[in-house]
């Protein structure tokens, strides 16, 4: 896997940049035409509408305590989900790449299932287990543990939806990493913890952060699963996208716009961050290959 066939093309920017021809007009037009209509135009529409309403007007909507609450809740649960994913995702990737155990292949194939399951179905999945009529409903009620229509339910739904991101970012990096360095460290007398934090972890950090960025971005914007699991209770379970939805439904465009712009800007920052990390990671992997 680490051998030659890829290395000849793995640095296309460097080797074939001069060879690359300029784009034929037909490709250029279809690319820019489609992207302009489908992506650029909607972006411009929301920005222009925001400017129409006026920045001050939009800022004043942040006095709305429900809006502030929804944004804060979204940031808190997204952070919690990322922290859990970083640990469980890295562990899962590690176990899948380094160890052999019965069911490893099946588990590896099923990691992406959350991507295939429609988001509303994910919500229903959580309800079917932890909801009042769910299989664990009675037990949870007796223990008076509130999961659905509360924050734990939100976090559970988000954990399912975002589960594959860290696993799938870390896995390929682990696959090309050389276990020899770890063995050398161990032979030289490094403790397990030292080996983990000084030898194993550092090369994984960019890919872990990449998975974290994707998880965070997905969690910020998630709607379907969380509205099914937690409903739309202001000041309790109302997340930012749910707040925007409620505002659109009741015709309060200003606050919907203001919070949408905030989410949109955060998505763009995450996207840029992700691209930077992606470049770092692929450079690291090429280094290992070469």
């Amino acid at each position, binding site marked *: 896997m680490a051998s030659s*066939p890829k290395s000849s093309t793995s640095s*296309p920017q460097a080797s074939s940049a001069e060879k*690359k021809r300029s784009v034929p007009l037909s*490709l250029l037009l*279809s*690319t*820019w035409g*489609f*992207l302009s209509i*489908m*992506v*650029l*135009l*909607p*972006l411009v*529409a929301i920005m222009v509408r925001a400017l129409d309403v006026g920045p001050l007007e939009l800022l004043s909507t942040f006095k709305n305590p429900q809006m502030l609450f929804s944004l804060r809740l979204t940031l808190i649960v997204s952070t919690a989900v990322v922290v859990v994913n970083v640990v*469980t995702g890295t*562990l*899962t990737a*590690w*176990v*899948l790449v*380094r*160890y*052999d*155990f019965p*069911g490893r292949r099946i588990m590896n*194939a*099923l990691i*992406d*299932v*959350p*991507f*295939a*399951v*429609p988001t*509303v*179905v994910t919500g*229903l*999945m959580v309800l*079917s287990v932890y909801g009042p*009529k*769910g*299989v664990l409903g009675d037990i949870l009620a007796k223990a008076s543990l509130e999961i659905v229509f509360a924050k734990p339910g939100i976090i559970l739904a988000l*954990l*399912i939806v975002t*589960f594959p991101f860290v696993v799938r970012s870390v896995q390929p990096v682990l*696959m090309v990493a050389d276990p020899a360095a770890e063995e050398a460290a161990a032979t030289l007398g490094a403790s397990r913890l030292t080996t983990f934090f000084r030898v194993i972890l550092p090369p994984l950090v960019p890919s872990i952060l990449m998975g974290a960025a994707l998880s965070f971005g997905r969690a910020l*914007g998630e709607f*379907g699963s969380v509205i*099914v699991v937690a409903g739309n209770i202001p000041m309790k379970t109302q997340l930012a*996208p749910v707040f*925007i*939805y409620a505002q*659109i439904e009741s015709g309060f465009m200003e606050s919907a*716009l203001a919070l949408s712009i905030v*989410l949109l800007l955060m*998505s*763009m920052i995450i*996207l840029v961050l992700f691209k930077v990390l992606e470049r770092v990671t692929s450079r690291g992997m090429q280094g290992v290959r070469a």
Partner: protein
Amino acid sequence: MSAGKRKRTTPLQAAAILAAVLWFGVLILLPIGVIVYKAFENGAGAFLAALVTPEARHAFRLTLIITVASVAVNTLIGLPIAFALARYRLRFKTIVDGLVNLPLAVSPIVAGLMFLLLVGRIGWFGDALEGAGIKIAFALPGMIIATMFVSLPFVVREVVPVLEEVGTEGEEAAATLGAGRLQTFFRVTLPAMRWGLIYGMTLTTARAMGEFGAVMIISGNIIRKTQTVPLHINQALADFDYQGAYSSALVLAAASFVILIVVQTIYQRKKGSENE
């Protein structure tokens, strides 16, 4: 690779494996099992009956139309974009790449709002469209456009790395041997990128079938008119029709799951055999 793996398992390793398997099992496999159980809790008859109600049938038909349309357009236009990104010196490449990836990062609700601001009653083209008698928002065309937006990145993202990897040598050889452009494309380029393309189309399908937020905003969520399967599931839950929700949810998830797993397995096997 397998040589390093088959060492004796230490207790620490066993604990790590157990933790990962348990987490995955409880978080993801358990709820999937429960949904299958719930769908058939009242028997296969009840499961099927909930799928043939007029609302359910209408929803499945809508989802099918929207999915086919989104996959077709995103494939036909995703390919030229992928070629432009992978094969040519493209100006503003970073921006093109960013625009392609943006739908992955944007909340579906924000996406829905953006299109509402274009084609909705309050949108830029709202009056013009209404004057011309064209219905886009709260109707099928708007739902297709919103779904196209959220599922736009997948074909491009899967095809670009494949195109970069296979290079242009085969095509140049074919051209030298006198093959026409179309012939080269269908006989050389298409077979080389086939699996990347199919995998991208599969991801597009999964995303299009399941889209909820953006379609909810742009469709107005009108029963038996603009409700796709995800909206129908949501409606059934709101009406306490649990059988209806579980039946449709199981069919929708199973369809998308089977397509994804089958294609992924073939794709990985293909990639594995090529790398050996």
